[in-house]
């Protein structure tokens, strides 16, 4: 009995703070998104969401965000997987290289912004801003994924590869039957992380393009930020709840895939 109390007492500060700053705000968000009114709020159901989908800027932001995700996430996963595989073949100096690749993720954006403005300033006002943002994202985060893939690849015992070679497997065969099943769970993680980091790229877009950047990099968070000034709580809450919903469903889908893959490999 006393043991349990100590446990509760230890965990309470964090749980309280977490609830106060994360859970309750999320609940308030959900309530704001389904209600309307200044002062006294009334339940309006899904009206806010319907209004949101008729908003041109929101649709633009949504389209841009999905375009960014659809292009950058697979690219970064494939690139980092390839580089992790290549790194594995020269394991002697891989530590230094891995460290170097990881460094851009830690660099403060403030330091990069000036540089990007100097080199690519004129492109930032045109549709090429999207390309700049993609490149920034790839540069910043590929080292992170290389690290994770590399750590997982190291766990594959090389006896598997030797066996395969003795049995005459080609390079592609070895990859498909040995490497891929091993790193399959990690790919799911990496996808979730890549999506998370892609949303963080809003910082670069904001600092480079300002509050109203060029059309091609106007992301969801820009939309939310701009309506902040108008105190248009409904729109912000609806957009944020939509984001929450996207994330939940993406995580659930990936978790579902993972469970199915596990079950299939156990059979």
């Amino acid at each position, binding site marked *: 009995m006393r043991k349990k109390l100590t446990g509760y007492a230890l*965990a309470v500060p964090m749980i309280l703070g977490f609830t106060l700053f994360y859970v309750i705000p999320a609940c308030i968000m959900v309530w*704001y998104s389904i209600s309307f009114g200044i002062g006294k709020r009334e339940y309006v159901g899904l009206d806010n969401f319907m209004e949101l989908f008729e908003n041109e800027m929101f649709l633009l932001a949504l389209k841009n965000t999905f375009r960014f995700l659809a292009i950058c996430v697979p690219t970064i996963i494939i690139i980092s997987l390839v580089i992790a595989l290549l790194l594995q073949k020269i394991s002697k*100096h891989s*530590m230094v290289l891995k460290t170097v690749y990881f460094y851009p993720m830690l*660099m*403060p954006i403030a330091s990069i912004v000036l540089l990007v403005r100097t080199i690519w300033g004129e492109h930032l006002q045109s549709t090429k801003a999207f390309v700049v943002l993609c490149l920034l994202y790839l540069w910043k985060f590929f080292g992170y994924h290389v690290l994770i893939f590399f750590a997982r690849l190291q766990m594959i015992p090389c006896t598997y590869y030797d066996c395969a070679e003795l049995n005459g497997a080609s390079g592609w065969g070895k990859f498909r039957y040995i490497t891929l099943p091993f790193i399959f769970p990690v790919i799911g*993680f990496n996808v979730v992380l890549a999506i998370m980091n892609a*949303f*963080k790229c809003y910082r670069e877009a904001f600092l480079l393009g300002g509050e109203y950047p060029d059309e091609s990099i106007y992301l969801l968070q820009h939309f939310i930020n701009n309506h902040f000034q108008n105190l248009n709580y409904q729109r912000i809450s609806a957009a944020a709840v939509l984001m929450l919903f996207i994330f939940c469903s993406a995580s659930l889908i990936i978790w579902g895939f993972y469970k199915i893959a596990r079950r299939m490999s156990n059979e």
Partner: protein
Amino acid sequence: MSRKDSVFLKIFLISLAIIVISPIVHMIWMSFGAEGDFSFQAYYRVFLTEPGYLVKFWRSLLLSTLIALGQTLLSCITAFAFKNYKMRGTKVILCIMVLFMILPIQVTLLPNYLLLNYLNLLNTWWTLLLPNIFAPFGAVWLTFILMTIPKEYIEAASLDGAGVVTVLCRIVVPMIKAPLVTLFLISFVDSWNMVEQPITFLQEARSYPLSVFLVIMNEQNVTTQSVCGMLCLIPVTLLFFYYHEEFVDGIADAFALH
């Protein structure tokens, strides 16, 4: 793998590394006066004659250190509580924490703003400290790490009469020293780079931490801007050089564990 292939591979990977580092090298070059005359003038300005930048630097450093320390301590205690004591609802709480870990900040930004406004904390640095100290990442990660520690150590200690504090300080913390350091570093870097919270919660540009101030400031001289960029880069780079193994191994282990 033939020697020639291996050499090509090495050249490719090393040139990739050079491309990755080139922005920083470029910035260092620019900070010394890119117009042709190599001078320390910009450094002189930033470090000696205009104290504003350095003041911001030290204040941001203090803020990031406080956030990192707070998060590490709190996560350590909480992870220990989750792991050691059988409480109902731990799994549910952990699931919720994992969900919030991957959400972007915008989801909770507005209500946080309203809440902090209600508490009259808006223009102070408490708004940056508090939500970040209670960030769920540390607790979740340390809970998973603690799962790898055998229970017997803690049970043996309690049988010998150790109280909670002793068990925590003398047994658990030394065993997870490396992940704790990694958590501190990650937390520090995250708070050093934070952009959305200062812009939303702080209304005066004067009180922005360094990460945001550099971009908002009206400085025409490119060289001075580069030096400020370097200034912003220094703590992270130093920490990285000194602790790069903890960073790399910590992150790799976190995901190789599953």
